[in-house]
């Protein structure tokens, strides 16, 4: 009986927590409360005499397309829809080579398969940023798992730091397995 009550309380708490996580991710009323002023971000020193000259993130980021995770900005959309127009080179004549090539990672255990789109990545990066230091050119030649990614290796170099975090499972694991791969019914 006691256990039952505890379980019920636990269930309610988990539901509340999940609701908080779900609806708390994009509260419309608190649209601009994510981006703390620099003086309150616990990184910048409010006593710094030049702090008032620096731009506060809310000013730059609140006008960009929204996202439910990370720094709340959908940077890919911001770029695609011309909200921002960042330079691709400084000195050299670096050319943007957007590559339209998707790589499917089928070896993802019980999770949906991962589709890696080169397009969105090459809009920001050039080949040598990832190849071959982090990933071999040859598809599937580099073996890695979620443990490494959560440790900041491979995809985790950027995802979890400057790109959407690895807690956004379904944004990478977005290709459902065919029915043949469905788990067998237990009976």
């Amino acid at each position, binding site marked *: 009986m006691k*256990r039952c009550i*505890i379980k019920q309380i*636990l269930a309610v*708490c*988990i539901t*509340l927590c999940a609701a*908080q996580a779900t609806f*708390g*991710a994009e509260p419309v009323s608190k649209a601009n409360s*994510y*981006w*703390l002023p*620099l003086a309150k*971000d*616990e*990184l*910048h*020193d409010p006593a*710094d*005499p*030049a*702090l008032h*000259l*620096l731009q506060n*993130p809310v000013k*730059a980021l609140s006008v960009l397309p929204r996202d439910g*995770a*990370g*720094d*709340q*900005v959908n*940077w890919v959309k911001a770029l695609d829809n011309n909200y921002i127009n*960042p*330079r*691709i*080179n*400084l*000195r*050299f004549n*670096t050319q943007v080579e957007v590559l339209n090539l998707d790589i499917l990672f089928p070896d993802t255990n019980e999770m949906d398969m991962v589709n890696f789109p080169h397009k969105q990545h090459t*809009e*920001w*990066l*050039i080949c*040598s*940023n990832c190849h071959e230091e*982090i990933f071999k050119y040859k598809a599937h030649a580099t073996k890695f798992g979620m*443990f490494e990614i*959560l*440790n*900041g290796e491979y995809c*985790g*170099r*950027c995802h*979890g*730091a*400057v790109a959407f*975090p*690895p*807690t956004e499972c379904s944004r990478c694991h977005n290709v459902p397995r065919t029915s043949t791969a469905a788990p067998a019914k237990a009976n």
Partner: protein
Amino acid sequence: MKRQIEYQQPFFCHLPKWMILLALLTLLVPSPVLAEYGDVVFNKRAEKSGMRPVIFPHWFHRIRFKCNVCHTELGFKMRAGANDIHMADIKDGKFCGACHNNQIAWGPGNCNLCHSGLTGLKSGIRGGNTTGGPGKW
């Protein structure tokens, strides 16, 4: 013949009651949604030299430059802490100094604009991994 179904009790049934209550209470405390800026703190030398740590905001720079500008042309490795940067390099036009030269952006004489961090901050990338998992950050 019916198969015997083994029912395993969830692990929390064996825990003391106070522990479960404590766990539940922590769940109920609203956790603040922290922004993930990818701000990088540089404090390998700053504080030792009597300066505030440097705060590098990724968000500000990526609006103006694509990743590869700094992570290819300027030679910044894509790993916080992997770049060994001296003020002398910056004054020479390397790393940050490629833009922070009083031409593209403010020059290295404007100390407090970059050296704006709270004292005691550890070097590394902030915001970062929100999983609380085995991340290095």
